[in-house]
C-alpha cells in the first residue's frame, strides 16, 4: 500500500503537465536543426560585413541615415566604390532595422539611439536598404537605395 503511494508521488513529481506530450526524439531533431542554423551564422552579429578584413583604398564617407515610418533619409545613399562608409543610423519614430543584404548589414535601431556601422563599398551597383524590424502597416514597402558608383 505504502509502496503504491510512494510510486504515485514520484510519478506526479515528474509529470507536472500530464497533458503535454512532447516526443523527445522529435524535439531533439528540432534542436539539432536550430543548432545547424546557428552554426551557419544566423545567430551571429551582422552589423559589419566583410569590410573589416579588407584594406581600404578610398575616402571615408560619413553619412547620417535616419529611418522613419516608412522610409529612409537620405534616399538614395550615394557613395563611390572603394569608399569606407560610416553610417550613423537613427530612428525618428519607432524601432526599425537597417538591412542591406549584399553588405551583410542588419542592425536594429530604437528611437533616441544611434547605431554606427562601418563597411567598405566594394560592390558596385544599386542595392535595397530594407527595414528588418516590423515597424507598422507600411513595413513591407519601406525601402531605400544604396548606390555605389564608379
Amino acid at each position, binding site marked *: 500500500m505504502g509502496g503504491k503511494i510512494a510510486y504515485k508521488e514520484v510519478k506526479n513529481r515528474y509529470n507536472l503537465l500530464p497533458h503535454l506530450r512532447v516526443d523527445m526524439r522529435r524535439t531533439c531533431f528540432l534542436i539539432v536543426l536550430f543548432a545547424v542554423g546557428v552554426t551557419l551564422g544566423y545567430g551571429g552579429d551582422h552589423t559589419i560585413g566583410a569590410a573589416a578584413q579588407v584594406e581600404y583604398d578610398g575616402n571615408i564617407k560619413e553619412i547620417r541615415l535616419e529611418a522613419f515610418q516608412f522610409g529612409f533619409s537620405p534616399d538614395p545613399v550615394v557613395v563611390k566604390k572603394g569608399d569606407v562608409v560610416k553610417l550613423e543610423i537613427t530612428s525618428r519614430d519607432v524601432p526599425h532595422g537597417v538591412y542591406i543584404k549584399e553588405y551583410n548589414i542588419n542592425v536594429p535601431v*530604437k528611437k533616441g539611439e544611434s547605431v554606427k556601422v562601418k563597411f567598405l563599398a566594394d560592390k558596385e551597383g544599386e542595392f535595397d536598404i*530594407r527595414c528588418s*524590424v*516590423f515597424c507598422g*502597416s507600411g513595413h513591407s514597402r519601406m525601402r531605400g537605395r544604396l548606390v555605389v558608383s564608379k
Partner: protein
Amino acid sequence: MTVFLSDKRNIVILLLGTLFLIKIPQENSRFIFWVFGGVLLASFYDLFITAMLKKRWIVPKSAVISGFILSGVLDYYQPWFVLVIFSLLPILSKYVLVFKNKHIFNPANFSLAVATLFKIPLTWSIESNACLIIIVGLYIAYSLRKMPHLIGFFVFFIGLFLTQTTNPFSLVSWFFVFIMLIEPKTSGFGWRRGLAFGSVAGISSFLIFKFISGYDFLVCALLVANLFNPVLEKIKNPAEGKRYLPREQ
C-alpha cells in the same frame, strides 16, 4: 462553390494567393520562386509526415497556408536552405508540440518566431493590400467566431500604444490580425477564452515593443499568447461545445 467556400481554409488560401499575385509586380522573380518554394516544401513535409504517422494521404490545406505565411513574411533574399529548414518547423511544431491532442503554437508563427529570435529579417512582403485583408479577414473572423479575439487584442493594443503617444493604427499589421492571430486551432474558442487570448496578445505585443525591441513584436506576442493556451483551456465558456462551433453557411 458553396461547399468549397464553406471550408474557411479555402478562403484563406484564395486570399493569400491574391495577396501574393498583387505583390508580384513590386518584387522580383526570386520572390515568386521563394513563395512557391515555401508552399511546396511545407505541403510536401506535411504530406510526408501524415502519410508516415496516419498512413493516409490528406490534402495539406493548412500546410499550404503555413507555407504562404512563412515564405511571404520571411525575407526572400535569405539562402534557400533557410527556406528548407524554416518551412519544416511549422509542420514539426504541429506534430511535436501538442497539448490535449491539439498543437499549441500557430505553426507558421512558431517558425517565424524562431526566425526573428535568430535575427533573420521578417519583411512581411506578402502584406500587399490592407483593404482586401480587412474585408475578407472580418468575414473569416465572423464565420469562425473569432471576433472576441479581435476585440481583446485591439482594446489593449490601442489603449497601451496610445499611452505612448504612438499611433496604434500605423503600427498594426492587418495581415497578422486577420490571418495569423485568429488561426482556429491555436487561439481557443468562445467569448471568454477569445477575449483572454486577444488580450494576452495585445499586452504582450506592447511589452515586447517597449522593452525588447529588435525582435518582431507581433510574432513574439502571438507566441506568448499561444504559450498561455494550456491556461486558457481552463476558462469555462457557457454552453461549451454548442454555441462556439463555427457558423454554418
